[in-house]
């Protein structure tokens, strides 16, 4: 059975129900039931018209649920009433579904869960496995999210930036389970790009494709991280890179730069370099300058310091790092370090030839690391320098 097809039909089936007058929360439950039913029934008995099948089953489930809950009179009216064929859902409907699921009244975790279920067609179990929480917890998170947006008018457009942030989170964070969240994020962003003509949507899609292209080379067979400079570029996915670059170029040509396009441009410059040594670091620094103008985040300035270190040498990189410290002294006088700042400092000191300082900083960075893969990687870096020095 084609699960990707099944899932890609989710938003349009859901909007058919909403257009027929079902409220969003009930319609979403009904569609979820229909998807589960499809997974059960389709392998043995595939429907000729998959979408028609899903609409019929979901609508029946919705009526059953309404029958169980609603007042007798309303219920009889509804059951008697044959559903109006209703207008065919358009790309605008899909778009509104994205806006609703990423509504600003939702927390990021809720928006992610609701988007994956209502737009992505994933089951609650799959989503709970991807984020390592009990299924009951995820079910509650989703039903609370639906309650939160229950008063939101479905026909009002929203801010596409909120949708992009949610899709970015899906791409960037999450564990495993049987769902490939990065691939799912790309699928949802592609679907969004088909529904709305917006250079930042294209920029995010390009960014995802360009990073996804390197995925197979980012970890070694033993699970350890492989830094960009040491990745086997022969194994990068050339088709994904070509597609990402083409999408990015078309977006940039429209001259409405945004943060995702700028990040994608940096990823494209890395993808473009046949070897790490041939990377165009000068242009990458320029893009970080653009990015800093668009979003003045310490993370951007930290990455810029890395690029400066490559373009103009480690001393220049360390100077850029010192500027970063001056610019972000932290709240209430206490040091509030930028994540990975110590790791960057270690790398720059190593390139500057100060191996003792670099080893000490790598070990310190390992203690601050936000995840196990980075901690192991940084510990190995410290060990590599320490064993070289003691030899």
């Amino acid at each position, binding site marked *: 059975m084609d699960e990707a097809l099944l899932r890609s039909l989710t938003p349009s089936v859901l909007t058919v129900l909403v257009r027929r007058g079902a409220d969003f929360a009930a319609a979403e439950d009904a569609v979820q039931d229909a998807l589960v039913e499809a997974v059960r029934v389709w392998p043995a008995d595939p429907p000729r018209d998959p979408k028609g099948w899903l609409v019929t089953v979901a609508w029946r489930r919705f009526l059953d649920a309404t029958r169980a809950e609603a007042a007798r009179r309303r219920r009889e009216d509804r059951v008697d009433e044959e559903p109006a064929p209703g207008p065919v859902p358009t790309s605008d409907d899909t778009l509104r579904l994205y806006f609703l699921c990423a509504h600003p009244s939702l927390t990021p975790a809720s928006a992610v869960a609701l988007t994956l279920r209502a737009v992505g067609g994933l089951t609650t179990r799959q989503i709970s496995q991807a984020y390592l929480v009990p299924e009951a917890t995820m079910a509650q998170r989703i039903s609370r999210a639906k309650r939160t947006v229950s008063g939101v008018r479905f026909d009002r457009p929203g801010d596409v930036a909120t949708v992009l942030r949610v899709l970015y989170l899906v791409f960037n964070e999450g564990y495993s389970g049987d769902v490939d969240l990065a691939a799912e994020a790309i699928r949802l962003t592609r679907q969004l790009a088909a529904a709305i003509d917006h250079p930042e949507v294209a920029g995010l899609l390009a960014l995802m494709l360009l990073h996804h292209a390197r995925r197979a080379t980012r970890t070694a067979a*033993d*699970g*350890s991280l492989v830094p960009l400079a040491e990745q086997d570029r022969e194994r990068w996915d050339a088709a994904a890179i070509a597609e990402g670059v083409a999408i990015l170029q078309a977006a940039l040509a429209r001259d409405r730069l945004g943060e995702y396009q700028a990040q994608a441009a940096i990823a494209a410059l890395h993808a473009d370099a046949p070897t790490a040594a041939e990377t165009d670091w000068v242009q990458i620094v320029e893009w970080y300058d653009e990015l800093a103008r668009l979003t003045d985040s310490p993370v951007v300035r930290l990455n810029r310091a890395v690029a400066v270190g490559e373009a103009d040498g480690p001393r220049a990189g360390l100077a850029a790092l010192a500027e970063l410290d001056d610019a972000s002294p932290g709240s209430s006088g206490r040091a509030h370090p930028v994540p990975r700042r110590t790791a960057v400092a270690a790398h720059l000191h190593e390139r500057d030839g100060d191996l003792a300082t670099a*080893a000490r900083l*790598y*070990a310190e960075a*390992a*203690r*601050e690391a*936000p995840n*196990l893969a980075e*901690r*192991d990687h940084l*510990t*190995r870096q*410290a*060990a*590599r320098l*320490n*064993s070289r020095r003691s030899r």
Partner: protein
Amino acid sequence: MAKYLLLKHYRGAPAAVNDVPMDQWTPEEISAHMQYMQDFADRLEKTGEFVDGQALAPEGSWVRYDGEGRPPVTDGPFAETKDLIAGWMVIDVDSHERAVELAGELSAAPGAGGKPIHEWLEVRPFLSAPPTITE
């Protein structure tokens, strides 16, 4: 079946026999250690004894309620705190002996020089639900 928590400490456990910080090992020794840990967890999953394993960051803070309408008080991290947990593994095994046996295996993970670390691990039984038949 009974559940046990195997606790690993950053600080507070008696010193291991082969007590060399990991950043003083060779990269190959680190790889061997990681492989051992991974194989151990994989084997427990296969035997149906693995429940959960997590690692914790070395630094956190202390928090307490400070009265109605006031934000909680936060403090720390305290360098003098004796006990600092690094991570845990939860296992579900037939007996206390089995829990001890597995903790012993985990403690034998290779460290500096490729030799077992002999790290002290804390083994703590879960307080379980009361049984149905009590007499």
